[in-house]
């Protein structure tokens, strides 16, 4: 199963977005960590100096005789009210709990040991559910091994950090979006030349062989542009060579044919002076030169299609008038082929290659003359911009199994297989197909819809209506 791959554009944009996301995430993490460290350090410093001040004040009021019961009022009177928890530790008298809910359990063993060992401590642990920064300082005024302990919640720091998070997140999001936008911009810049190349390739494919790319002054791109233009030039030369060949062959074939046609015509002017046997020979010559001429004309026409040397030469015409002229030119003067207009086709203006479509109509008309007693009527329809021309006869019709075959080269229906008449070369309908294809049109053959015998050749010409 073929793997569905993302386009270059999508991949570059995704890469840019992911890059921007990663970069901004990294920056956010670094910013967050540094800010956090700075904030904690500042708050610790703050707490330490606050605790030192408090410890000094308490120390001044203490003496060996200070009773435990006096400690609470002492502490409340001295300490500036803050949101901290306070307590004291007397190693010989046990722990004293203050009024600010700093309980015995809150006194971490680690803190107790650190204090007794090194006279001071500073550490962070959870009290209740919240992290606190706990500081212990000696109170030498009281007695040996008396300590003042103060615990400050780290909540402020956390709050500050929490408020930073959405800011960082939105900064990351914005950076990612900017990265994506940059990706779009870059791919646009990168892909513009590619778009131009594909546009140029399309133009060349549609027959505009002179299409070339202009240099962009970028050495990397210019190499591509040069090879593209080189390819276009050799393609153009090749096609022109082929079409010149077709045209040279055309000239080479037409000249002897011209001499033959002319000579036979001169002879025909003297037919009555000839012996009977010579007349028969002349008639044979004349008929076969006629066939040869049609064959050469058709072959040349079709070879022009094969080398792509054909050019559509469209002009605006009134549909009804054009069809009337075209069929009028195709059939004998005294015959009148009715043209039946449907849904306003008589007022339609269309853009078409008159010569080609007239030839299509002439060809179908000549076929009808040969095999079906001539065209009996033409119906015109249109559906929006699309036009349908239906050419009907009252002949034997085309057998179902031959309805596609007859449009192929050198294919002939069973009826046309007899060469007795000396006419009919199997290129006509394939040329019709080619002429129509050049205009984006198609042809098919069906039975007549009105129940009469005969065939109906349906020509569809899409998007030719003007306005």
């Amino acid at each position, binding site marked *: 199963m073929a793997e569905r791959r993302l386009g270059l554009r999508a991949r570059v944009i995704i890469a840019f977005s992911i890059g921007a996301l990663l970069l901004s995430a990294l920056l956010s993490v670094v910013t967050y960590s540094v800010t956090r460290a700075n904030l904690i350090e500042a708050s610790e410093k703050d707490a330490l100096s606050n605790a030192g001040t408090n410890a000094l004040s308490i120390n001044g009021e203490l003496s060996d005789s200070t009773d435990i019961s006096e400690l609470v009022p002492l502490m409340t009177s001295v300490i500036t009210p803050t949101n901290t928890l306070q307590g004291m530790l007397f190693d010989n008298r046990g722990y004293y709990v203050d009024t600010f809910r700093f309980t015995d359990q809150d006194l971490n063993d680690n803190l107790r040991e650190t204090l007794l060992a090194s006279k001071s401590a500073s550490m962070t642990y959870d009290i209740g559910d919240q992290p606190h920064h706990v500081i212990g300082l000696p109170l030498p005024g009281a007695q040996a091994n008396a300590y003042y302990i103060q615990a400050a919640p780290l909540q402020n720091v956390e709050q500050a950090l929490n408020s930073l998070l959405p800011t960082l997140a939105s900064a990351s999001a914005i950076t990612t979006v900017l990265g994506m936008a940059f990706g779009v911009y870059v791919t646009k810049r990168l892909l513009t030349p590619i778009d131009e190349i594909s546009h140029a390739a399309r133009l060349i494919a549609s027959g505009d062989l002179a299409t070339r790319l202009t240099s962009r002054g970028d050495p990397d791109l210019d190499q591509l542009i040069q090879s593209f233009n080189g390819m276009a030039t050799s393609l153009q030369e090749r096609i022109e060579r082929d079409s010149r060949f077709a*045209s040279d062959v*055309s*000239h080479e074939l*037409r*000249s*002897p*044919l*011209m*001499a*033959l*046609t*002319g*000579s036979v*015509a*001169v002879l025909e*002017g003297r037919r009555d002076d000839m012996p009977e046997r010579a007349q028969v020979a002349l008639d044979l010559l004349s008929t076969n030169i006629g066939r040869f*001429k049609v064959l050469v004309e058709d072959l040349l026409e079709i070879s022009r299609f094969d080398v792509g040397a054909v*050019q559509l*030469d469209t*002009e*605006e*015409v*009134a549909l009804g*008038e054009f069809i009337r*002229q*075209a069929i*009028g*030119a*195709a059939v004998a*003067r005294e015959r009148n082929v009715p043209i039946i207009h449907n849904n306003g086709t008589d007022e339609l*203006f269309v853009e078409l290659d*008159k*010569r080609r479509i*007239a030839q299509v109509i*002439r060809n179908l008309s000549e076929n009808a003359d040969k095999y079906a007693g001539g065209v009996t009527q033409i119906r015109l329809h249109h559906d929006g911009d699309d036009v349908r021309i239906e050419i009907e006869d009252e002949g034997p019709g085309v057998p179902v199994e031959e309805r596609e075959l007859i449009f192929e080269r050198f294919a002939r229906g069973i009826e046309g297989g007899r060469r007795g008449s000396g006419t009919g070369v199997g290129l006509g309908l394939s040329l019709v197909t080619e002429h129509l294809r050049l205009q984006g049109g198609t042809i098919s053959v069906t039975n007549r819809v009105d129940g009469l015998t005969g065939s109906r050749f349906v020509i569809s010409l899409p998007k030719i209506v*003007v306005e």
Partner: protein
Amino acid sequence: MATQVLTVEDDDSIRTVVKLALEDEGWGVLEASNGEDALVIFRDKGADVVLIDIMLPGMNGFEVCRSIRRTTDVPIIMVTARSDTHDVVAGLEAGADDYLTKPFEPKELSARIRALLRRSRSQGSDAVQMTFGELEVSPEQGVVTLRGEQVHLTKTEFKLLVELASGPSKVFSRETLLEKVWGYDYFGDGRLVDVHVRRLRTKIEPDPADPRYVVTVRGLGYKLVP
């Protein structure tokens, strides 16, 4: 004197067969196998119609055509081996009145020549002088004046203008003009009309890009605006 046709063609067989066919019509035929000879013969003997093959050794058919057109209005038919737009239009632009694509039937050639001769002998029958703005057309005298000054038109251009003038404001389809001016009785080549209209415009229009007299009627043809 019998009508003289100068045929310029390098292929001996074709030139001979054209000569035979035209002589059967009762016309005199002058032959040239290259452009240089053709110009000399035309200068010395003149001709009523000139038939020029485009592909000639040395000086090509377009050059011969332009060269002859510089001095005279003689009807010129270009013969091309290709029906490509390029050759046909280039031939008409060089001043040809009509063209034929090889291989053509001698009957077709004589019909074309007859149409051209008709054109150069009678310049329309309605003798009245017609006026369109500053443009005056006198079919009988074969004279066209613009702001009182005579305009030099070839016979085909003149015939085309007279035809358009025969029905002021009436729309003439290319097919009608082909039939009336060039004598085509089949589905002809509109380029013949278009190139001649273009040439006519450069001679009579104040601004050929925005015609005042010979106006294109979209999808239908041309008309002469009074």
